[in-house]
């Protein structure tokens, strides 16, 4: 009883309009960064996938190096590289200091990271389209670009959507890594509240509730979408 009273007392202490607004704003930052990273990552992914299946050896090689380097190193390291490494490289090259916002750094680092994963999932979706579809397009005289546009990509698209939604969920969760470079996203807001009250359990639980609401909503939406697409088959 005592414990429960205690809990509801701390809960009441934390769940004030000011604190909740603070946390929800931070949640918007998390989602915003994830949306931006998904958007730019998908563009990088389309380019990367085109590179991975290119007939040009050099382009193919570059695309593979990109994918392997990004997927083979921790995301935390990549974020720190853009936060600490890139500005000093720019300073060394140009001679003048460069201090981009941590939000920009966050979006860039996460887009580049996401792009590598998207490259692989887009490439595999394209290559999973039946060989016969490529051959039929070829014998009908469709150029490579038209074949991609009318035949291959529309069929690959269905396979791209579900993993892209999981990628989005991953990005929302991984954007919490940006708290270490000072981005005030959802996890950072929980840490800040915790520091204000010298108590971390409740704010971390609050952040968990927000994360779960986001991720569960998105995966529910994704299941609905998959059902609808299955119907149109």
């Amino acid at each position, binding site marked *: 009883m005592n414990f429960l009273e205690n809990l509801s007392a701390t809960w009441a202490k934390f769940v004030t309009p000011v604190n909740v607004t603070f946390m929800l704003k931070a949640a918007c930052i998390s989602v915003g960064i994830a949306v931006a990273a998904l958007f730019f990552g998908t563009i990088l992914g389309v380019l990367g996938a085109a590179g991975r299946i290119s007939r040009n050896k050099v382009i193919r090689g570059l695309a593979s190096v990109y994918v392997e380097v990004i997927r083979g190193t921790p995301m935390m390291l990549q974020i720190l590289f853009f936060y600490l490494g890139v500005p000093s490289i720019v300073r060394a090259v140009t001679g003048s200091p460069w201090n981009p916002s941590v939000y920009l750094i966050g979006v860039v680092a996460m887009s580049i990271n996401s792009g590598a994963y998207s490259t692989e999932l887009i490439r595999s979706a394209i290559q999973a389209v039946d060989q*016969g*579809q490529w051959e039929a397009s070829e*014998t009908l*005289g*469709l*150029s490579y670009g*038209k074949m991609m546009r*009318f035949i291959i990509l529309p069929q690959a698209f269905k396979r791209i959507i579900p993993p892209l939604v999981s990628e989005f969920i991953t990005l929302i969760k991984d954007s919490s890594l940006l708290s270490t470079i000072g981005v005030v996203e959802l996890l950072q807001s929980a840490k800040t509240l915790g520091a204000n009250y010298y108590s971390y359990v409740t704010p971390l639980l609050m952040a968990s509730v927000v994360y779960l609401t986001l991720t569960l909503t998105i995966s529910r939406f994704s299941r609905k979408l998959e059902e609808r697409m299955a119907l149109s088959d």
Partner: protein
Amino acid sequence: MISLKNVTKQFGSLTAVDNASLKVEKGEIICLIGPSGSGKSTLLRCIAGLERPESGEVYIDGELLDLGTKDTKKLERQRIKMGFVFQHFNLFPHMTVLENLTLAPIEVLGMDKAAAEQRAAELLARVGLADKRDAYPAKLSGGQKQRVAIARSLCMDPEIMLFDEPTSALDPEMVGEVLDVMKELAQAGMTMVLVTHEMGFAREVATKVIFLADGKILEENSPAELFQNPQNPRLQDFLSKVL
């Protein structure tokens, strides 16, 4: 119209087509027969430009078919002289029958949509599927799919039609409807090269039958001669098994 000069196609250490030479004249109907794995499909795919031979040349109307060329326009122009019908149809599943038929005429030949649809409707009627224009391929039977695939090739107005075992993936009761469409095409004077296990069809419709084994052309003759009077022991053996 088409000629192959000493075409050899290898897959790793396996020689699928071994030094094959062949001429196809306008109006001819050539059937390729032979045991499984003898290289019939590979030979046909070399003609269509779907496989790139290691050595030898394929000429379409006297012009070399060069798959490595930078001149992709020329390659496309050569490719659309030939229609190809696949064993597994390869219809575009995300498009209706009508869209399957009009895509290439619109995008490749530059026809306007109304004209392409008009022509598609005529060809669908010709293969007996006028009522299926708005259906998706998944809703069609195997025989109907193959007839749509034939109509799709015809929409490009090819000079020659290539068929790779067009009836092998069909339930027996649907083989006839597809063969009928092919017979009708033959009677209309279409030049055709086809790989088939339908010996009755070869005997009845072909102007020439070619027997392959181990990637080599071992015998070629009129159907009457080839079936009645086979010379090569491999062919005699093959015919004794299939007839």
